[in-house]
């Protein structure tokens, strides 16, 4: 089923680019989604620093080559290639190059693999990469990589698509994510990860002011369902820790975080879960290194950026806070955190954007209050009346 070269090269940092979807009409998400999933699986390898496909999107959009993307993201090697689906079967062709000089690190034309479905493809690619990077896996790491989170390949694809939809926090995209996770659960009612991500979508809808309190209750219910089905799903604990912020249970969040820490996992959700619990209980200094590790894997994740800038600001690390705030794509987060840093210019620019763009009264009100202090009330009143 798999043909790969047998000359491992020790690599300590790796960028996995979105695999190019070759033929399927519905597979825009396929290449990006599988790259994200492979990155998540490989995060079980402690000695390998990973950078996600999402991190490279902005660089690739400028027409940069894979080698250039690798150089700019400061990784030793880059994996890129294509994915083709024929019915349920999946064919992957991939190549690994060294960022420094573009040298091909895999002999025999790279990795060529055919799997019976997306689920199997993800596991096979991840284990093949680990083997060819000279990473010795323990039995439990190999077991984690080969684990199938659901018996339904179709449900798995819905999960992958839902997670991509959840990256954008607009009403339409959140509703799409919710629908996709629900469909995945219909196909496999024991799919713990789908319940966990449904909980995340529900909570996001509540916290964005798009749904009422029932969305928060659903989020709580779905996170608990996920953990009953599989206590090892970090996304479910992350969802719980976030929900606990709105239920007065921040301390319980620390207990959830302790369970995640004990698992030893270092994927984005695990790192974020522990960091979030510390941040919500007044320990931003402890959350900073965890958020930095998570952002090294997924630098384009706006949620992580927001949490890191808040943590830096609250911990008095103003240079770090400013550095992160300057790259924020969320006007509300940038405004709030720049306010903590006392940077009037960033506060004013973003508060105006919040008042123009948000229909949710909470961010609007905070922008109003902030502008009151930063003395641009004439413009604020004009926007308010508009």
């Amino acid at each position: 089923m798999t043909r790969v070269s047998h000359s491992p090269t020790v690599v300590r940092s790796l960028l996995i680019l979105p695999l190019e979807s070759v033929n399927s009409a519905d597979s825009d998400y396929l290449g990006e989604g599988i790259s994200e999933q492979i990155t998540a699986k490989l995060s079980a390898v402690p000695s390998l620093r990973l950078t996600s496909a999402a991190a490279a999107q902005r660089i690739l959009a400028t027409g940069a080559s894979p080698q250039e993307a690798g150089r700019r993201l400061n990784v030793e090697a880059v994996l890129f290639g294509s994915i083709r689906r024929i019915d349920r079967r999946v064919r992957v062709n991939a190549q690994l190059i060294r960022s420094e000089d573009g040298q091909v690190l895999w002999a025999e034309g790279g990795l060529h693999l055919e799997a019976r479905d997306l689920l199997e493809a993800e596991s096979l690619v991840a284990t093949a990469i680990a083997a060819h990077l000279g990473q010795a896996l323990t039995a439990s790491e190999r077991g984690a990589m080969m684990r199938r989170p659901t018996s339904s390949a179709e449900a798995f694809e819905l999960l992958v698509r839902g997670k991509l939809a959840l990256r954008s926090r607009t009403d339409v995209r959140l509703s799409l994510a919710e629908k996709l996770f629900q469909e995945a659960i219909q196909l496999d009612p024991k799919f713990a990860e789908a319940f966990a991500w449904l909980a995340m979508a529900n909570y996001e809808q509540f916290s964005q002011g798009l749904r009422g309190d029932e969305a928060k209750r659903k989020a709580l219910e779905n996170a608990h369902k996920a953990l009953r089905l599989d206590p090892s799903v970090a996304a479910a604990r992350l969802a719980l820790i976030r929900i606990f912020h709105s239920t007065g249970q921040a301390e319980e969040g620390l207990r959830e975080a302790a369970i995640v820490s004990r698992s030893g996992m270092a994927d984005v959700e695990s790192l974020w879960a522990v960091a979030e619990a510390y941040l919500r209980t007044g320990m931003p200094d402890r959350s900073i290194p965890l958020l930095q590790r998570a952002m090294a894997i997924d630098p384009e994740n706006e949620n992580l950026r927001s949490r890191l800038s808040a943590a830096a600001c609250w911990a008095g690390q103003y240079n770090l806070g400013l550095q992160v705030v300057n790259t924020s794509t969320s006007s509300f987060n940038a405004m709030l955190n720049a306010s903590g840093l006392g940077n009037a210019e960033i506060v004013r620019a973003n508060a105006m954007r919040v008042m123009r763009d948000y229909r949710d009264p909470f961010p609007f009100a905070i922008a109003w209050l902030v502008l009151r202090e930063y003395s641009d009330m004439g413009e604020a009143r004009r926007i308010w009346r508009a």
Partner: protein
Amino acid sequence: MEEDAAKLANERTRIGLALLYGALGDRKAYDQVRLALEVNPADPWTLFWASEVYGLLGDDEKALASLQQAADRGFLSIFYLDLQREHSSRGLYHLRNHPRLLAIRTQLANRIDHLRRVY
């Protein structure tokens, strides 16, 4: 915005409206706080922001009582309280040196120190 918020039983949205009314000195802020607390009566997040709304309206006794309730029920985001103390536009700024507010801040700091030792 008010019409949209009325369709939702979302305490966060209600608090947003309450803050806006409070900033304008409009007593409709009280109604919005009441509605927010009806959705989730014991929520420390809501109680904390309710405290700011009361502060904006100059209702200092209610502001301090609500802040105390928030702290007693698990509010730990001490930095939000510090932001209030540092920025003159915020509802609790004028209470920044009030002995009760300082005692609540100490209560939060002690609780956080305890959690640091445990976790």
